[in-house]
């Protein structure tokens, strides 16, 4: 009995990985063949990108601020308060900016995508789409994927800047650093490797945010209750995957001697 359950569990997970990979390959491929839904892509860029702007900026600003607050306490015991700009800049650009931005966007948009597509599935709108000659992957998944691939890196850049701004506000008000000193050290600390790491991570995260939402939406079962379950699962899985991928990608870059 246990063996049967275990076998079914493993097969289910393997099938999920296979279907997710299939979804990824097809949604990327569809951008290179007609028909292309450019208007839908632009609409999704507005929904995902501009719609997430406020929470990303707020998240970045207060993360940078609290990072400066916490680091100031430690650095002041060693008399190295002047390094605040460096610490905030490196932490935000390498790690906190990309990860927290992706987590915020996943929380807002993976759930939205899953619930929207899941609702369409349970109300037979997806079947209607296929009956009317539309490929749901082309119409629904590919625009969301490319919209997220374009907007998430841009949001990350803005979050990084807001984080450094938040750190600057704390550094000048609490640590009594001069603004020039803070920004000069922040700027000088950043190397090409830091920016490369911080700006390539969002592309992996964008794939996770868009496709996890689409995957759970397209596999919704059980009516409106099922839509709720898909929405929750999409957020949880997307957030966990973001953290896991972040760890392994960072490890990969270190192992390949990139740092």
């Amino acid at each position: 009995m246990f063996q049967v359950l275990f076998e079914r569990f493993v097969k289910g997970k393997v099938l999920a990985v296979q279907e997710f990979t299939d979804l990824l390959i097809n949604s990327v491929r569809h951008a290179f063949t007609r028909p292309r839904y450019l208007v839908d892509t632009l609409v999704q860029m507005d929904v995902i990108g501009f719609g997430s702007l406020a929470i990303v900026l707020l998240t970045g600003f207060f993360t940078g601020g609290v990072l400066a607050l916490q680091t100031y306490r430690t650095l002041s015991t060693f008399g190295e308060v002047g390094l605040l700009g460096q610490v905030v800049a490196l932490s935000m650009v390498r790690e906190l900016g990309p990860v927290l931005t992706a987590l915020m966007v996943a929380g807002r948009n993976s759930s939205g995508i899953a619930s929207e597509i899941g609702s369409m599935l349970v109300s037979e709108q997806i079947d209607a789409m296929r009956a009317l000659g539309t490929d749901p992957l082309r119409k629904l998944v590919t625009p969301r994927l490319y919209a997220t691939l374009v907007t998430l890196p841009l949001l990350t850049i803005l979050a990084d800047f807001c984080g450094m701004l938040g750190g600057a506000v704390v550094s000048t008000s609490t640590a009594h650093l001069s603004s020039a000193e803070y920004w000069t050290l922040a700027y000088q600390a950043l190397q090409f490797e830091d920016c490369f790491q911080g700006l390539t991570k969002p592309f992996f995260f964008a794939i996770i945010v868009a496709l996890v939402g689409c995957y759970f939406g397209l596999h919704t079962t059980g009516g409106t209750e099922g839509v709720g379950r898909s929405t929750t699962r999409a957020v949880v899985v997307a957030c966990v995957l973001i953290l896991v991928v972040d760890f392994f990608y960072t490890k990969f870059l270190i192992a390949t001697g990139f740092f």
Partner: protein
Amino acid sequence: MTLPEAEPSPRARDRREGQTAVVELRHVSLAFEEKPVLNDVSFRVGAGETLVLLGVTGSGKSVLLKLILGLLKPDAGQVLVGGQDLAPLSESQLYPIRQRMGIVFQEGALFDSLSVYENVAYRLREEGLKDEARIERQVREVLRFVEMEHALEKMPAELSGGMRRRVSIARAIVNEPAIMLYDSPTAGLDPVTAHTINILIAKLRDVQNVSSLVVTQRLADAYALAHFTYSAEQQGLVAVASDGGLGRRVPTHFLVLRDGTAYFSGSTDELTSTPDPYLRKFLA
């Protein structure tokens, strides 16, 4: 006195001459996660004919419609539309075949984010039509057919159940399909609105000679389609008499499903006069 047969529209005449609008299932079986849904089902719908699919909830009626559209593939048997087996075809190869079919889903399945106009125009745009004037003309024509032209700019959430069903019919017929599939088109509607939907179905069948497959649990609707024909003069249904009486015979057949199998297949008279206890209970 025998009333003359209603003149088919030019579109219906072209369809009859140029195309065989036939749906055929041969020994089709399908199971979902080892639970059998359909078992060795076979039937045939000829050009201009109507097949009414009856059965209790869970007997596989809606699944049959999805098989005919190619939304599902059978585990065994063949699904033929116009003589072509759908099973080996890919999704993109199915699109030209689906263009010949229209489907009305149970709850309408209108796209929530699009207006009535955009819902009906959707298929025309997907088929590559770019002439906006022509799109508007065709959309207005079908909405006028279903008496919903006044609701062009409304969103689906603003429509009643019956109105959504009518818009769904308009969306399905905008490209003049030869085969119409109806999945419980009157489910959840009051008798007056249900009658309106039946008139539209009969109008399409009798004026445009569309082949129809109607899934329903409502015997009253099934009998209405079998015993009545659309009258343009009276803008409604009039009784059909058999054996050369008033009106003309409506080619309607019944298929009753039970536990995924074709339990009964035959004409209206055969169904109403059957001595089978299950069918007598079903028809009671």
